[in-house]
């Protein structure tokens, strides 16, 4: 995966470049909006990370310009402005995700990986499979080893999102955003409780664990045996 980081803070950019390299992601860096636009137009990237406030051309205008040129590389907006309405304007300008500063790198990494994956495969699978776990999106049925598991509607959506991003870390905020469609900070461990309930339902009678807790980051569903 190759990404472009458009960030005018050189320290932050150097840190990101290094951290992404350690995670196995190659990155280019542009330090202002114009050169960012140039690079994003000339080269092909899997994901763009765009700071909202940039010299010469701000992040939002960079993204709308790209979209106007029919370049649909997924873009994640980083911003010190983290309020509800800022997120809305960011996504309206053509951004695909929005992360307020300061953020945990694990959160950024998880989101970039999900965005990078999204680009390649349009989501047409009607059935998700992880190991012997099977989720039928049309029939709303979950089976493991051929045995049906009964889930609440929200648990179903939670599992659906986890399985859609199987093998990737999803953070608690990503779950809140994508499964519940809220962007606030729930403060307590509300998401963890939902996940652990789901986990007990899908792992109760089976030896092989599927849903892992990734320390300091979030959760990942993965078939440990075949992987």
């Amino acid at each position, binding site marked *: 995966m190759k990404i472009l980081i458009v960030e005018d803070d050189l320290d932050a950019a150097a840190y990101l470049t290094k951290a992404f390299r350690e995670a196995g992601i190659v990155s280019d860096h542009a330090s202002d909006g114009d050169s960012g636009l140039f690079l994003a137009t000339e080269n092909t990237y899997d994901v763009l990370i765009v700071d909202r406030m940039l010299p010469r051309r701000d992040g939002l205008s960079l993204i709308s310009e790209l979209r106007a040129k029919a370049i649909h590389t997924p873009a994640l907006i980083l911003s010190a402005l*983290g*309020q509800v309405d800022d997120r809305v304007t960011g996504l309206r300008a053509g951004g695909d995700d929005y992360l307020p500063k300061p953020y945990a790198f694990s959160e950024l990494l998880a989101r970039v990986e999900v965005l990078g994956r999204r680009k390649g495969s349009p989501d047409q699978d009607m059935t998700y499979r992880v190991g012997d776990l099977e989720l039928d999106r049309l029939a709303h049925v979950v089976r493991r080893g051929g045995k049906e598991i009964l889930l609440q509607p929200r648990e179903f959506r939670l599992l659906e999102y986890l399985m859609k991003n199987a093998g990737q870390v999803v953070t608690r905020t990503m779950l809140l955003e994508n499964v519940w469609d809220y962007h606030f*900070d*729930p403060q*307590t461990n509300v998401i963890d409780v939902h996940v652990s309930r789901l986990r007990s339902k899908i792992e109760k009678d089976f030896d092989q664990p599927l849903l892992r807790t990734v320390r300091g980051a979030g959760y990942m569903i993965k078939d440990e045996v075949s992987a």
Partner: protein
Amino acid sequence: MAAPRMASGVKALFRTTAVRLSALYLLLFAACAAFLVFYVTSMSQGLLRDQIRETVAQEASEIEQVFTRGGMNGLLRALERRARQPGANLYIIASPAGEILAGNVLSLQPGVLDQEGWTTAPFRYERYGDEGKSERHAALAEVFLLPNSLKILVGRDLGDPENFRGLVRQSLVVALGIMGIGALAIWYLIGRNALRRMDRMSGASQRIMDGDLTQRLPVGGSGDEFDRLSESLNAMLGRIEKLNEGLRQVSDNIAHDLKTPLTRLRNKAEAALAGKTEPAEFRESLSEIIAESDQLIRTFNALLMISRVEAGSAVAEMGPVDLTQIVADCVELYEPAAEDAGLSVKSEIAPDIQIIGNRELIGQALGNLLDNAIKYAEGASEGRIVVRLAREGETALLSVADNGPGIPAEHRADALKRFVRLDKSRSKPGTGLGLSLVEAVMEVHHGTLKLSATADEKGMEHGLTATMCFPASAVGKA
């Protein structure tokens, strides 16, 4: 000493709007009055002249008849008789060359007799009996020829109309004078009164500017425009004072709530650097440091959000939202966590309540209330949380009730203040901003947040009930 002060007082008086306006009005009224008086005068003068002409013309025709009937002798006798009457008209019999032969006029402005018909303008003459007096009179007259080519002049003195004009002029001057003096006196009284009140208001504003925000502008109680102005300025001052107070409280609390974790953060880093040697120990210290900074970021985010919400920038994103759905979502989101904490959750959610609002903000606010309820009801015997959404008349009430320790009535107002955590030991996690944020969110929705005690079936009070009240304006429009 007194004179310059007086002069400056008058100067100040003329700087007031009331006096300037009155001066303008006085000029306008004086001009109108003058115009009116002159108009009436000239009209009545014209009327008088017409009357004079009529009488003169009538006499002239009578004199002509006397001449035809009685000849020259009859004419002379008749004129003599008429001339002797008090207030008589003017009569002259003159030669064709214009020499006065008989009549009651001594001398005449030259040229008057030269032209037959009406004298076009008032002329001057001297009467018998007035000799010596230099005074000459103006008169209006008709001149005509007798068949024997003698000239006859019949005229009437204009003395009376002239007097009339003088009288009018004099009364005009007197009236204008009284008007001017009266206006000056009234302006002075009104203007000075206005000035005094303005002085009091600027005095109060000066004290406020000097930093005493508890000062208020004087309100006279008459409900006039000054009072209305003072009242709205006072309301504004109240709002400013409240904001200022909040700001000061925040800066006071920042010392504690932001500096304390920062100090802890620094101490941990220092301790790790000085005392730890094993990588596992460093790892543990570092993750503690990250957790500590996450809490700090949380506090900052909450503070920013409150200030953004209070500044009203979230208002732009208001729209029709399904309150029932939001409440159901939030209950569903927090229920497992509450159950894990050993609490039962009961919800009574009225269907189909639509309001104008911001889904994220309401969700966050309700989340904060549920989070608080879970935190404080945890450990209570048969701990439970009741979430209720109901329509009450035009308003929508959303309440979260717990049966935890609750907040004593006298501390409830404090609980809404920023950074105030009634739990002095601060053993529970939290920013101390939760309820402030809920209150700010309710303010955006023009609603209120009320804290009260939870009453159980037996009427016993325990625990806390937080009620978000959405007003009719938000409920009705959706």
